């Protein structure tokens, strides 16, 4: 079981693929998502998003605000800018 992750910004799709773990910082604090997570919608603050992809590598992105939505093992991260 893996998460289907998409990290998108208004100008491009920054990253998309399969991942085993995603962590991000919401207004209420750090949040980790593993496969099977309950449907969730969170508001992100400026900070790092890290995605552990299925091949074992970890990708770090700096996001400026945005949203994280999780449903049916599908994680989408919307942000205004990511790098």
């Amino acid at each position, binding site marked *: 079981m893996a998460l289907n992750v998409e990290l*998108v910004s208004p*100008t491009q*799709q920054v990253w998309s693929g399969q991942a085993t773990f995603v962590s991000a910082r919401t207004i209420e604090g750090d949040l980790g998502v593993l496969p099977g997570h309950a*449907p*969730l919608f*969170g*508001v992100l603050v400026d900070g790092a998003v890290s995605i552990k992809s299925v091949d074992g590598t970890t990708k770090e992105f700096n996001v400026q605000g945005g*949203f994280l*939505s999780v449903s049916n093992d599908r994680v989408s991260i*919307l942000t205004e800018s990511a790098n």
Partner: protein
Amino acid sequence: MGAQLRIYRRRMRSVKATKKITKAMELISASRIVKAQQRVAASTPYANELTRAVSAVASFSSTNHPLTTPSENPKRAAILIISADRGMAGAYSNNAIKEGEQLAAMIRERGLEVSNYLVGRKAVNYYKFRNRDIAGSWTGFSDNPTYENAKEVAEALISAFIADAQTDNAGVDEIHIIFTEFKSMLTQNAMAKRMLPLEVIESSAPAPSGLLPMYEFEPNAAEVLNALLPRYIEARIFNAMLQSAASEHAARRRAMKSATDNADDLIKSLTRLANAARQAEITQEISEIVGGADALASASAGSE
């Protein structure tokens, strides 16, 4: 060279120079359409995700957000018209402006006032020339809009929407957007859409529950909606601007292509006319020489 022939040659030179310019503009636009289309495509995933999120949040939370609730007695509506900065694009800007006029007439029929927000120098000039009030205008980026541009426009519109229209002259109850939808290289359509209040699909019980699950909201639904809706408006405006930019390039390419074709036709017919004039000149010269020789011959024959 006769006067007639000289005039034809001069006109041919000027048409040829114009043709070079229109040909160059056609090629530039053609290459920019592709880039503009790629930008539209690149912005689509974000817009789709955002739309999904907004419909999920708005239909599954009972929050009454000001951005989703229509005003009970609306007083004023804002129209955002996206046009071009430069001309030479056929009827592109005019179509958008006309669509705006129609929408404004419809809104006035409902008894509302209209406040105009304009993007692109063409629309601004059109309104200025007619001495109409402009609530806000932005120029200089119509052929290559960035997200920052869209954000700027969205902020002005959202703050006008949040302001109370009953007491504040800048406040509006509805926001409509007019942009040119890019259907294909050949078809672009000016269209009007209502942006605010949102038309969120009321999908309560019979909706496909598998598609939009019950979300947990962090920190809470109202807060999420507060943060989400401005982004949604920005993304909608950005997408409209990108589509309009692609349409502008397509319209310009088409206009410049027909200008180039016309120049070709003109050069062809002018060449024919110039040839005929040259031929007529030669014929006249020959007949003059023959006539002169005849006259000389008969004059010398008479004297002997």
